[in-house]
């Protein structure tokens, strides 16, 4: 909402500068979003008259003018097409300073193509008064020559304030002035008269009939006769234009003006157009429609409240008047409506019809029922004054009893404790009473307040009163306090272990991604793990591209790889951690945390020669996963050949943690990378974090370190190609060889010498005892046992 500094001063004795006001408004809760200076003309610009014009000898577009500045005649060179003799124009005298972006420029005495010039005549745009730059701004003949132009331009400051939905009371000058008065102690001036003379003959008591008293508990109307519809006086137009309301005619302008003044939307009907001279406030009948002031036809339902005559709706109550019942140029007799409409009803109708107005905006947030009559009085007063109405009916009122006022008990200590601010009890009383709260009862420790009619939408309890105290007393007075410790039952930090995991992955050289959780269906189900039916989808997606919740991070990583490869970033090592979603509870229960890793390209692109072209392979990926798991001190994890349609069957491992499947890793199938110009294979891992984070940790107890030397033995054999490293190690471990400390593969090769379908494997074994140096005999005995068992148990040929 926009408010004018000048107009605000009509309601409060404001001793604040426009800049100070901006700050105060913000600090009491009316956030000032924009401050706009209007009608501001630089000092030194005066009203002047062109006496004569002749052509400049050295130019085909410049003129030389004799200009009277109120006391003397001076010479000005001017390029405007309309610098004709007789025109009253703005003249920037020597020394006038104009803003110019961040800088300024000053008008100086000058010579233009050899002719002296003593100032500058201005266009409206040069003065910042409008966008008009077609020629000099022509001023009315009524302006006194020599006077500063700013005497006539109504310099003002206009604030755009953001009004929070809990403060419908701020949707008027009066409401804002009231809070400023509470803050500054300045005097207020209420604009509405207490009564006006009424002398219209006739019985008007049947003019109004309210059927829907639930939606309209207070309706007032007043008939004013023999009004003259005309243009509004300039002060009224200026006041409306300043806040962005277009003047229409004096009657409509008055209703808008009073709405801005007191926050109460009003409406005026032409009495001629009220069939049967009767106003009925009722719910619309099904099938009824109305053409509103915006010229559009609206179909109404039984939920919409309308103002009707004896035949048809003439206004959508609280939203907009009808096109054929409002004030027109030849209107003479009018009915002035001031009423309170149910906020929920206005909101529902406004929303359903897609029709909003300044009136509906105020009614749906909650109008002040106490302001209905004063607003009517104020508008009637102005109509009499400005539209010369000469006969006015008494106020015709249909009213239900006012609801009981809301009463709130407040304990001073509790407010002080809540705010952490030492506000004296009588200071609280003073703040609240100046805001319109009435003290019902009071004692040493607290008081009981009655909530004013304009705050019933927001003030329900003690905490609300505390807010009032805080904002008027000043939030800038909150003291600095020491941050205290808390002994809380919650000790499990849910983020820390995620952070740890991230840092482990980063230290393995991976970059973290943060991708959209929403994607298109085709990307989401690519790879064949999830089907379209598995996907969780909002019913109101923003687009088809963002219509499904990601069931896995794999498509996110694929997208990032596509993005980077198309920008020639080829050597990529990424991971992402995030929530993934699935409807099919057999696959996983709806929402879980996933980790995905992707690597492709070269491992050391920063190096040279052969090393530069060494590509990432499966074991780089597995190594990253293994180091991560080792760093977490897992008690038990292993890898076995896995089957996941997203990975090549020949290169896919399943990660097992504590006997449970924790995810898969391998080389991505071509389907996933289709359309990406990848020159290297893509390796990915997908790990379920619920399994990882719930995994058992191995013992943290210290194992004594042997002081005795180790003895090494190697064993090599030819095995069938499908014998895995794990099978060999498990087999050797199962032999429980005495003092065997470590088994490690050190060579593996295939070739013609070995035979088709076979491979040679070589392991080194380390023996060591905790309490003595092993003898050759002891070790040899174990070694022989091993060789014998290998040949028999694994059916390998020892070499």
């Amino acid at each position: 909402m926009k408010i004018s500094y000048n107009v605000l001063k009509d309601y409060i004795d404001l001793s604040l500068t426009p800049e100070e006001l901006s700050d105060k408004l913000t600090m009491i809760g009316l956030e000032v979003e924009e401050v706009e200076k209007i009608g501001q003309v630089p000092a030194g610009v005066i009203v002047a008259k062109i006496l004569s014009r002749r052509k400049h000898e050295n130019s085909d577009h410049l003129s030389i003018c004799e200009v009277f500045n109120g006391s003397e005649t001076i010479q000005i060179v001017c390029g405007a097409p309309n610098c004709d003799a007789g025109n009253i124009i703005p003249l920037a005298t020597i020394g006038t300073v104009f803003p110019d972006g961040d800088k300024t420029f000053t008008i100086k005495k000058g010579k233009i193509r050899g002719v002296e010039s003593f100032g500058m005549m201005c266009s409206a745009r040069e003065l910042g008064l409008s966008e008009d730059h077609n020629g000099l701004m022509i001023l009315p003949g009524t302006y006194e020559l020599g006077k500063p132009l700013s005497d006539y331009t109504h310099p003002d400051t206009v604030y755009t304030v953001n009004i929070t939905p809990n403060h419908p009371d701020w949707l008027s000058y009066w409401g804002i002035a009231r809070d400023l008065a509470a803050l500054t102690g300045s005097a207020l001036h209420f604009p509405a008269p207490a009564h006006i003379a009424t002398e219209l003959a006739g019985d008007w008591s049947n003019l109004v009939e309210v059927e829907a008293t639930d939606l309209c508990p207070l309706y007032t109307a007043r008939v004013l006769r023999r009004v003259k519809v005309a243009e509004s006086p300039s002060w009224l137009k200026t006041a409306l234009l300043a806040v962005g309301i277009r003047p229409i005619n004096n009657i409509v302008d008055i209703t808008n003006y009073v709405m801005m003044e007191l926050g109460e939307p009003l409406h005026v009907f032409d009495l001629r157009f009220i069939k049967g001279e009767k106003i009925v406030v009722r719910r619309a009948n099904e099938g009824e429609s109305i053409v509103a002031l915006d010229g559009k036809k609206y179909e109404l339902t039984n939920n919409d409240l309308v103002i009707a005559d004896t035949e048809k709706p003439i206004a959508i109550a609280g939203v907009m008047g009808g096109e054929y019942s409002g004030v027109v140029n030849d209107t003479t007799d009018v009915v002035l409506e001031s009423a309170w409409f149910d906020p929920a009803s206005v909101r529902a109708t406004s929303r359903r019809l897609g029709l909003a107005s300044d009136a509906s905006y105020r009614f749906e947030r909650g109008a002040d029922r106490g302001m209905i009559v004063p607003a009517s009085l104020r508008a009637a007063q102005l109509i009499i004054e400005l539209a010369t109405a000469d006969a006015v009916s008494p106020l015709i009122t249909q009213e239900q009893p006012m609801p009981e006022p809301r009463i709130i008990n407040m304990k001073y200590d509790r407010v002080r404790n809540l705010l952490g601010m030492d506000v004296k009890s009588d200071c609280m009383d003073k703040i609240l009473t100046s805001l319109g709260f009435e003290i019902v009862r009071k004692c040493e420790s607290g008081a009981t307040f009655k909530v004013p009619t304009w705050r019933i939408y927001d003030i329900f309890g003690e905490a609300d009163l505390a807010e009032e105290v805080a904002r008027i007393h000043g939030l800038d007075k909150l003291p600095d306090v020491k941050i205290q410790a808390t002994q809380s039952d919650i000790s499990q930090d849910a983020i820390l272990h995620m952070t740890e995991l991230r840092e482990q992955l980063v230290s393995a050289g991976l970059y973290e991604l943060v991708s959209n959780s929403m994607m298109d269906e085709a990307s989401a189900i690519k790879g064949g793990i999830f089907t379209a039916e598995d996907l969780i989808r909002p019913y109101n997606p923003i687009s088809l591209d963002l219509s499904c919740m990601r069931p896995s991070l794999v498509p996110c990583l694929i997208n990032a790889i596509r993005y980077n490869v198309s920008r020639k970033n080829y050597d990529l090592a990424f991971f992402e951690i995030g929530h993934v979603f699935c409807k099919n509870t057999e696959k996983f229960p709806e929402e879980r945390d996933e980790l995905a890793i992707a690597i492709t390209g070269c491992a050391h692109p920063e190096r040279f020669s052969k090393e530069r072209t060494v590509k990432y392979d499966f074991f780089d990926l597995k190594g990253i996963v293994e180091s991560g798991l080792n760093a977490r001190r897992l008690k038990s994890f292993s890898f076995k050949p896995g089957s996941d349609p997203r990975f090549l069957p020949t290169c896919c491992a399943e990660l097992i943690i504590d006997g449970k499947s924790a995810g898969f890793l391998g080389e991505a199938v071509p389907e996933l990378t289709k359309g990406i110009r990848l020159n290297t294979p893509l390796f990915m891992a997908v790990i379920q974090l619920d399994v990882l984070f719930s995994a058992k940790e191995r013992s943290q107890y210290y194992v004594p370190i042997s002081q005795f030397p180790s003895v090494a033995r190697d064993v090599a054999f030819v095995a069938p190609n499908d014998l895995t490293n794990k099978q060999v190690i498990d087999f050797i471990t199962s032999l429980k060889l005495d003092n065997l400390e470590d088994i490690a593969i050190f060579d593996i090769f295939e070739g013609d010498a070995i035979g088709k379908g076979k491979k040679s494997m070589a392991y080194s074994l380390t023996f060591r005892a905790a309490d003595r140096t092993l003898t050759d005999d002891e070790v040899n005995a174990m070694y022989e046992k091993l060789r014998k068992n290998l040949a028999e148990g694994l059916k390998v040929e020892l070499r």
Partner: protein
Amino acid sequence: MMLEELLQQLQAISSDAVASLNAADSDAAIEAVKNRTLGRSGAITALSPQMGQLPKEDKRAAGLAFNEAKTAIQKALNDAKAKLAASEAASAPAVDVTLPGRAWPIGRKHPISQTIDECCDIFRRMGFIAVSGPELETVWYNFDALNAPLNHPSRDPQDTFYLPDGRLLRTQTSPVQIRTMLGNKPPVRIVSPGRCYRRDTPDATHGVHFHQLEGLYIDKNVSMADLRSTILKFATEFFGPDVRIRMRPSFFPFTEPSVECDFSCVCCGGKGCRVCKNSGWLEIMGAGMVNPAVLRNAGYDPEELQGFAFGFGLERLTMLKHRINDLRIFSDNDLRFLKQF
């Protein structure tokens, strides 16, 4: 042979060998001297039978002389070898230390994660514990329990993503606060960072998802002054000691009193610039004292307990910290961007 003669010969062999070794410039030359003196058929070796023929009283002197000669030659041999090795090392081609090193790979956390971690860290030092919760939420946790009025525009399907079963994608991380209060006895002092969703058309400052961090502190005597001091501490830890904060009244259904908390502009220091729209202030977070209705919804007694809550957008904080002006770059995941943090 007389002793005299033997000693002279030994002396001659020794000095000749030492001189040759001093001049030797290759392994072969050194080896040759060694062979012709100490070798199996070398001069010294050849002389040694002569010692047996000397008179008894001369044997001791001859033995000493043999040892002297051998030691002198051996020392010269060693010196020559060391000298040669040093000169070879000196003339070997140097390692080109300007060639690229082999990277010891280190990646980077995403800047949003870095902000989350930094924020959580700062709040942990003040006694807050980080908690998390689901992104698919019920209307009750996301709106009702937080005192959002039934007609609040944020509930509109225009602004919030709903699932066909009536649940929604959380629009804030505050549901975690309700879940935490319902599951734990007071006091609670938590922050909940996480991903939220709003139905905004993506542009430079909006996306369908964003990250938020909310804080909650409920105990018997937690006040608005505690709120202010907590936020001030956070602001100065995150943006540096010169940051000032300003609280001004605002409105959120979740809190009463409610405030907006502005930070002095981190770009211009509060003098006014394009980023702060010349106001000197940046709107960073909404905060306030938890509304008694919310405490009741969470099973806490508002007569006994009170406290504050606050929330802010992590993208905005990250953008301000790194002077990023378009939010969309966060989820582009361009490696050249990620490497910068």
